[in-house]
């Protein structure tokens, strides 16, 4: 009797286990069957979302295009371009003007004061030779003139006086020569002076 009861109990347990395994297998099968459908559904959702958004964006792009291509916008663009061109031309003009002024100002400038000072530095008996064939001349930053004097030492002293005025970048003389006045038979000295126009430099002759 006990043995019969045990046999029956084993049979029930085995049946129950079998039905549980069957149910688990069925669940897995249904999940596996549903999975591609879920995936398909998700992909379709993404497709719909992308398509709708693309359409929305193209509507917005169309609106922007019509704004950008409108007469008002084109006019604005043209006006802006013209103004920019004009501004660039003005800027170029300003740069050229500054550059031109710079090129002019970097050169030495001959002033009337220089001509006045070369005369004021002369002592009695000394004068600039003032003739048509020996003019006061200025070329390439060098002011040149001829001086006549009664004293031989005056040449050096005159140049020293000019240097002390600190007006020129350099002062020098050359062609010192003793001459005689044919009418009065008096002798005199002549020499040429060259002054370099430019800022005075301590200790430098410049020439």
């Amino acid at each position, binding site marked *: 009797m006990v043995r019969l009861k045990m046999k029956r109990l084993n049979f029930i347990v085995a049946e129950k286990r079998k039905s549980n395994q069957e149910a688990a297998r069925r669940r897995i099968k249904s999940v596996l069957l549903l999975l591609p459908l879920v995936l398909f559904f998700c992909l379709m959702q993404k497709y719909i979302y992308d398509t709708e958004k693309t359409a929305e964006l193209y509507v917005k792009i169309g609106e922007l295009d019509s704004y950008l291509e409108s007469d008002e916008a084109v006019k604005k663009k043209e006006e802006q371009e013209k103004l920019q061109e004009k501004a660039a031309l003005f800027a170029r003009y*300003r740069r050229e003007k500054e550059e031109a002024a710079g090129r*002019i100002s970097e050169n030495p400038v001959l002033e009337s004061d220089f001509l006045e000072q070369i005369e004021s530095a002369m002592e009695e008996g000394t004068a600039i030779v003032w003739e048509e064939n020996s003019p006061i001349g200025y070329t390439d930053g060098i002011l040149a003139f001829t001086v006549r004097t009664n004293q031989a030492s005056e040449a050096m002293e005159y140049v020293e006086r000019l240097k002390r005025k600190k007006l020129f970048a350099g002062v020098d003389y050359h062609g010192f020569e003793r001459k005689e006045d044919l009418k009065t038979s008096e002798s005199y000295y002549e020499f040429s002076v060259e002054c370099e126009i430019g800022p005075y430099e301590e200790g430098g002759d410049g020439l």
Partner: protein
Amino acid sequence: MRKLTQRECTLIYMAVLLIVVYTGGFLLCIPAAGGYLEAKHEFRERCAEKEILDMKTGQTEVLKAKCEAQEEEFKNTPEIYKSEFLKTGIEKTVLSCMEQSGLMPVSTFITAGSENMEKNGENLEFKTGSIEVSAEGSKDGALKVLDCFRDSMVLKVASYTMYPKEEEEAVSVFIRLEYVMPGSAKELMELIEKES
């Protein structure tokens, strides 16, 4: 022919579904996503264009005012700067200096040229040349005329010769002046004239 088992049917069903899903994904979703990205990029470009236009429009008034101020300044610059009046402008300036100094001009001779210069990647153009002028007058006048050109931003005295005339007190002066001027002045003049 034998009947397919349930297991085989299930496997075939899953394989078909997977093929449909992936093919559908490949045929529909990928082009749709690409199209969306393309549209997004295009939209961003248009937005940037609009922003630039709006920004420029905002700056237009500022730029306009700046250009007007520069134009007014240009209109008030001496004629000497304007290439169109180059020869007459220079001659006028030099002769008025002579007159102011009490010298009587005898003759003038102008040579004109142009030169280009590359600076900071920009081609700058200059009108260059020289004017030779001879005049007569007092010695004081001959000295004074130098001060007239002293502060000029356009002209520089390249050579100067002063010698006495036969009559006493009077002197003859020969001056060679060199000039350098902005070459874009003519272009500016034409632009301003065209606009007005």
